[in-house]
């Protein structure tokens, strides 16, 4: 697979343990005491979105469901609140994946933005139905930050798949 479909450089296949590791690191980042800063992205949603766009055959709704339950427990929120949001996110991300990867990175980020917006909107709806209070407009800020982080994230998470360029005059590709 290539970094984007229009590039000619072929990447190594992704290793499953690297996907798991990146999700665990994202969980760790989510547990950092950053709750009072506005605009800190939901790292798990971001990484899940990345992998379900890139590797929709490997990372599907099952992963999203598992990680969502873990986040529900870690965040002491209503069971199923993160789960629902993440499952919907992966569904739409994987259905977009064949199109998104044709674009250059900046335009990809623009298409990822509405996807990421699903997560706070779903959680907001669930929270309000469960009798919560309006959390303030800054709660909906993080998808913007997350979309901006799409570029460094792509570079970082694809780094293990790059291989050194070998110049070989006889090889067809």
């Amino acid at each position, binding site marked *: 697979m290539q970094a984007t479909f229009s590039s000619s450089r072929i990447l190594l296949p992704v290793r499953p343990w690297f996907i798991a590791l990146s999700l665990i690191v994202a969980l760790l980042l989510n547990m950092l005491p950053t709750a009072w800063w506005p605009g800190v992205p939901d790292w798990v949603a971001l990484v899940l979105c990345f992998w379900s766009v890139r590797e929709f055959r490997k990372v599907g709704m099952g992963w999203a469901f598992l990680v969502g339950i873990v986040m529900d427990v870690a965040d002491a929120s209503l069971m199923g609140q993160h789960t*629902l949001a993440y499952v919907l996110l992966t569904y739409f991300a994987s259905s977009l994946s064949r199109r998104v990867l044709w674009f250059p990175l900046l335009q990809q980020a623009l298409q990822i933005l509405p996807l990421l917006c699903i997560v706070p909107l779903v959680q907001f709806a669930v929270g309000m139905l469960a009798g919560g209070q309006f959390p303030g407009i800054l709660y909906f800020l993080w998808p913007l930050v997350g979309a901006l982080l799409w570029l460094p994230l792509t570079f970082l998470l694809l780094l293990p798949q790059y291989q050194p360029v070998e110049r070989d005059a006889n090889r067809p590709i």
Partner: protein
Amino acid sequence: MAAFDHSPPPFFKQGPAPLALLSLYVAISISLMVLDAKFRYLEIGRQALAVVLQPLQQLAHSPARGFDQAGEYFQTVGALQDENQRLKHAKLEVAPTLLRLQQLEAENARLRRLLSVHERQPAGGQVAQILYTARDPFSRRVIVDKGQQDKIAAGLPVVDDAGIVGQVTRVYPFLSEVTLITDKGQAVPVQIVRNGLRSVVFGLGNGQLELRFMPVNADVQEGDLLVTSGLDGIFQPGFPVARVLGIERESSYSFARILCAPVAGVENFGEVMVLAARTPPAPRPEPAEAVEGAPEDKAPKARKKRPGGRN
């Protein structure tokens, strides 16, 4: 006929259709929500997952702790001397009160015995560290690093050096969840220090508290200090809870709208103290006895409060 319906096997194995999977997962999520919110059946599952998550949570806490320690390390001698001086000063200031406190407590106990009133239980407990605050803005909760192993039980009150912070709501083997008093759905029975007026203060979910069901003409003033009344049998009486910020009295409503700010550093990050359980209060007298007029000192449920409960 069957031969016509037969479609060729797919080249790539894809599993069930995405839309079917989606509806399955959404259905499971929604049923989880209902089970959790309405029936609370999922506590055991939560406990099991929390044990697995505990090392991760400790790990996530270590950068913050390291940052704190590094900050202490780089503090200058001057700053430390300054702080030392200030602390000595503060200690000297409270010394007379403290010295008299022992004598006062003894005297109080004697007088209470004379009056044959129940003795006040001394406050005890254990210090816990706040590990992190839940990201979810719909639940005002913090996770602390003491759990069932340290004999923490659900319902115990949590205080810091200034006043009541919240109440333990879920206990895991090594961690527990503290619902802050600012959480929507958390209520603390209080009384006003100035005149002893009793009420219940409710969290608003935005960092403030509200004193509900107080009549428009109730004797509440801005700046009044609210302390726990101890009527619930959970919070010990006399801990500061909140200070009245503002009062809106409109004659079109039967109740005044009274906003309060918590006294304790509820949204801070640091160490808190989980108080030991109170000895259970006397059981509620039978209705027949209640008519006799003995004013019950400790009602077990303070949430079932009369509107505008006056003394």
